[in-house]
């Protein structure tokens, strides 16, 4: 996956995270927590949809 695709998937998550907080099941969850969790979900430790990060970035792990 190239960086443009990675950014597109991140964009989808950025749209879905605040929408999810409007559902009763996620109503108590802060958007920022959901963004982190969804980021984890699409990342290499989760579904692996986003694996390519910028060359300067370094994982927190």
């Amino acid at each position: 996956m190239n960086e443009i695709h990675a950014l597109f998937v991140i964009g989808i998550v950025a749209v879905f995270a605040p929408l999810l907080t409007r559902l009763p099941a996620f109503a108590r969850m802060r958007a920022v927590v959901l963004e982190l969790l969804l980021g984890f979900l699409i990342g290499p430790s989760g579904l692996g949809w986003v694996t390519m990060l910028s060359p300067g970035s370094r994982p927190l792990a």
Partner: protein
Amino acid sequence: MGHNAIAWLAAFGLSVLFASVLYAIGLLHAPLLIALVLPTTAFGMLLPILHESGNLGTNFGRYVLGLAVAGELGPLVLAAIVLAHQHHHLHETILTVVFFAVAIGAILAAQRMRSRALAGLIAGWMHDRSILPVRIALLILLGLVSLANELGMELVLGAYTAGMVIAMLVRDTRAEILQNRLMSIGSGFFIPVFFITSGVEFDLPGLLTSPGSIARLILFCAGFLLIRIVPVRLYKGVLPENDLLPLALLSSTTLPLVVAVTYLGVRTGDMLPENAHALVGAAVITVAVFPALAFVLRAKGEGAQPEGAVAIAIHRAANLASVQFSRFLGFVTQKIPEQRDR
């Protein structure tokens, strides 16, 4: 503000002590950076939480926000200084002083320039197709970020200064529309992208499968709260006893700064990656649990009864926390005079 500044400094002092103990037992690589992360507060997250709970205009809400401002600004400035240089040479220290002089000068200049005429001009230009004030604001941002970079400071400090300069010019004036536009750019794109990419880089299985990492997670989670519990006693005269533990819980609610500072710490090699992970995990717990616990405790103090299984479970946990907190305070207030007498 006096209460808030002293309470934050006390929390920072306890944080240094807490990090020093962890450093002494070999859990930390750079205790000062951890000490800076622990007393952070998520001001931007507390604002809607207090609004939704109807506490924004109350005395309690004002003290929570005051403490949150100190918890957001203090660690950021100190972290930028700590991360900027190792200060081995005099010229590096001088460059840091130069940056702070320029930053304070820019904020004071913005304060002097603030006027009704300028606000009207900015508000008028906001309706142009080129939205010139947004371009000027971004230029101020890029200028201060470049200056911070040139002087060896962390870029975030330049960005923060730019935010303060622009807020000084437009807040509570007709030109506040500019602030709203900039917030749209930040909240609509940059902020979610930052947190989602932080989530992408977050190794949750690594955190939850290692006993050492779980121990760090629990330690940091306790650390976020413990360093706040004693300083909130300063509010005893201005807030009811029942509000003190909720105040400690809410002021321990943090995440964005933890993510930012741990990212910088790992990047500069000043923080062990496993500590960065555990800190972010602990911060997620503070956001998910602490505010709910705080409001359950306040409701309990006011005699309200919880409804539903989850609320009852939190209510019981809050009861237990409240009893332990009272015991802890009793122990501290008993021991300190004994130490003094010796």
